[in-house]
């Protein structure tokens, strides 16, 4: 068992082709997060707890690096050998891309994100890269002012509060063939855009792409706790999520394995055909989740695949306090079950699988709770309880309550701006989304 994190982890990068450095921990650090690159390509990440103030000498570093990254190196070099022999280059021109950043009242984080995007967009092999900031009803001017300091960034306002309102606004304003979404609490890796280009050129037929999410910092027990529990990690191998998957009897109802909403990209035409995002999910504070699951699920159900690419990577600012993290677990349970309730209503074909998923989810969390109680991991137990609580609440009518809320938001905003309601068909309104 790993010791309970109490301090902070030092996140550091190593370039494997160079001599390994000696790493020293400060007195208030009790572990490393090691990001490994090979010729600047991201190939691995590992968490390694160590005593505060200790030093990891080059020999120990070597052992750690060998254990976790040596095969990744061999696979990477093998891939470039095979690519020359096997690769059939796509005979379509590179697509254009719109990067949509939906944000609300987080001007400083937005500035950080836009800087990181700025650093990668100029070097891209894509046909063109457009950046759109959707200001989701921020209370003041700060978001607009920050956006104005960057060149070639479009700014638009979505008065209806809710992440999926903002995503839909971006969808209708975007011009790119591909539409990549970034949450405002991430920073993109310097290989982010190249990773997206690579996965597109290997799999141009996919309906969407999801990417790796690494921790931006591990400064608090909550952030470390979350990352040690697996974080958003989906590993360092590309994963093809197809409409059917024989290895997982619950697929694609367990859409969470596909990726995370803070870093995802879609074929924009496909999203338009699907009717965009479900505006009753991911509505902010009352129901902060489920929107990404829903869109992943609908893309897969439409017959297109979603490909996970680890080099299409961002760094996510995890929840800082344990209370925030607890609330996050609650919201995952809530969002997941609201999503399942919607699926059960709109996609009867997979009814059996959806029921099995609910059963699996409760047994899984019940066992997780039992395990953490047995091991006296009370903190973990509280998180599991929070997620279970959210799950129950989500099953008991949260989706309907959220539909009502999003309708009221729409009416409210429409009244204020004197517009007619429903200028655009909104799927969640009548509960019969595609």
């Amino acid at each position, binding site marked *: 068992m790993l010791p309970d994190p109490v301090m902070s982890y030092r996140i550091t990068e190593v370039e494997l082709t160079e001599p390994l450095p000696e790493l020293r921990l400060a007195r208030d650090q009790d572990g490393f997060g090691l990001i490994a690159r*090979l010729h600047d390509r991201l190939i691995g990440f590992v968490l390694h707890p160590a005593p505060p103030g200790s030093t990891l000498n080059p020999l120990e570093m070597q052992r750690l690096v*060998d254990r976790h990254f040596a095969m990744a190196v*061999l696979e*990477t070099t093998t*891939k470039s050998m095979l690519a020359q022999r096997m*690769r059939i280059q796509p005979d379509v021109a590179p697509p254009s891309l719109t990067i949509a950043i939906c944000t609300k009242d987080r001007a400083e984080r937005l500035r950080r994100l836009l800087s990181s995007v700025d650093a990668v967009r100029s070097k891209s092999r894509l046909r063109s890269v457009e950046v759109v900031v959707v200001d989701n009803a921020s209370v003041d001017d700060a978001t607009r002012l920050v956006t104005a300091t960057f060149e070639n960034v479009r700014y638009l306002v979505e008065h209806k509060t809710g992440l999926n309102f903002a995503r839909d606004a971006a969808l209708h304003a975007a011009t790119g063939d591909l539409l990549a979404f970034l949450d405002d609490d991430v920073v993109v890796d310097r290989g982010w855009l190249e990773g997206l280009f690579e996965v597109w050129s*290997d799999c141009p037929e996919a309906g969407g792409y999801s990417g790796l999410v690494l921790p931006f910092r591990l400064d608090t027990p909550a952030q470390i706790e979350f990352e040690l529990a697996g974080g958003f990690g989906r590993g360092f191998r590309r994963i093809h999520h*197809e409409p059917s998957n024989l290895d997982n009897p619950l697929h694609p109802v367990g859409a969470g394995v596909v990726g995370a909403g803070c870093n995802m990209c879609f074929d924009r035409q496909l999203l338009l055909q699907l009717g965009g995002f479900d505006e009753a999910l991911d509505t902010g504070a009352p129901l902060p989740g489920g929107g990404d699951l829903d869109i992943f699920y609908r893309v897969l159900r439409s017959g297109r695949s979603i490909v996970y690419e680890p080099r299409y990577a961002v760094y996510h600012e995890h929840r800082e306090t344990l209370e925030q993290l607890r609330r996050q677990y609650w919201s995952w349970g809530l969002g997941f079950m609201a999503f399942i309730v919607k699926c059960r209503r709109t996609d009867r074909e997979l009814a059996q699988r959806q029921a099995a998923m609910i059963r699996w989810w409760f047994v899984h969390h019940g066992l997780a709770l039992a395990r953490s109680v047995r091991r006296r991991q009370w903190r973990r137990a509280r998180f599991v309880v929070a997620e279970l609580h959210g799950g129950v609440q989500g099953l008991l009518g949260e989706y309907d309550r959220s539909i009502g809320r999003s309708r009221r938001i729409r009416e409210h905003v429409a009244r204020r701006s004197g517009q007619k309601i429903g200028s655009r068909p909104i799927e969640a309104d009548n509960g019969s989304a595609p």
Partner: protein
Amino acid sequence: MNWQVIHLDVRSDLAHLAAGDGAAFVVFWWGSLPLGARRYAARELPLPPGRLLPLCSQLVAQQLAARLPELGAPLKPGGDAEPVIRLSTQTAIAFTQHSAIDQMAVGSVEIPDDLSVVVCTRDRPRELHGCLRSLGGQRPAPLEVVVVDNSEQRSAQPICEAFPEVRYVHEPRPGLSIARNAGIAASRGGVIAFTDDDVEVHAGWSAELARMFRAQPEIDAVTGLVLPSSLATRAQRFFQFDMGGFGSSFLPLRFDKSFIEEQLPHGPQVWRIGAGANMAFRRSVFARVGLFDERLGAGASGCSEDSELWYRILASGGCCFYEPRAVVFHHHRAAWDDLLRQTRAYMKGHVSALVVQSDRHGHRSNLQRIVRALPLYFSRMAIDVMRRGSKERGSVLAREVIGWAAGLQYLVRPGWRRRMAVRPGK
């Protein structure tokens, strides 16, 4: 669902993986080198090159690491008998000989003129016919093929007459171990390879085995890869996918005494070394550790006579090698009831072998497996059955528990445990 087994040489056949009318179990090959296998739903096929590339990179890289001495080959098994790759980052970065995979693609041309193939059979004429036909197609051909007929009515004799190069031996005393021992006595080769009557062998099977034994004189036994020949029925797919088939590793692995020693605290998992449907021994081994234990195996306690022999070999300081290049295709039980019967026999035989291993070597952890690890495994599986709500898994688990309970009898039969059942080989 309509299932097919597809063999795909990823060097050349990229375009040939057509969309079938059903799901597929795809075995990936690099020439004659098996790389790995995956299953796909019908709508996933054909696989686009962009999807094959990362998978092939992973599979080829693993083969390189497992087969090139400069990358740390041969691999040794870890805690769960899985291959452990010990590669240093510096070696991996400096490595440029990826084209070594092309040399590995070439099959063995070793002439197996010192290798006898022994097939034991009992009242399965139709399956035996397929088996002998495949053995007749061995290129290059082995020294001899010996069929040991374990039936009272000599039911295999008419089949064997259709294959003039096959030598027929009748062993009326029932029991697979007894039949195998009769095959050893009747054969002449310095290496004896066993396969079962419900198996068809790959054309290069004998040559691959012969190459292993000739190249590495210290090896006492070789096991190989057992692939499903068909996955048409629910029972066959359940055996392959849910019960793991006859092992799924495509990486060569070297087992020696340290395997027994390292695993001693929890009972050595010798059954992970291979399968009786695809195994070979040097004749000298039988003189050193004795023949198959006649209390074990089909027709006696149920199974595990093969793994118990590997146990003796390793414990005596010998060496076993799993070489997946030696490929056979097994007809899994097609009927669900047959699968249940087989499951019960496997578990009963497993328990009996654990008793024998404990008695013979004084390794008590084998008994602890019976009373601790197996019940724990059953309860874990029971939770899993509840979680997934799988009736199929539940009925198989029930047969495992019944087989285990039936195997407990061997613990309390001092006469059986004392019986001198291993005869020395010549």
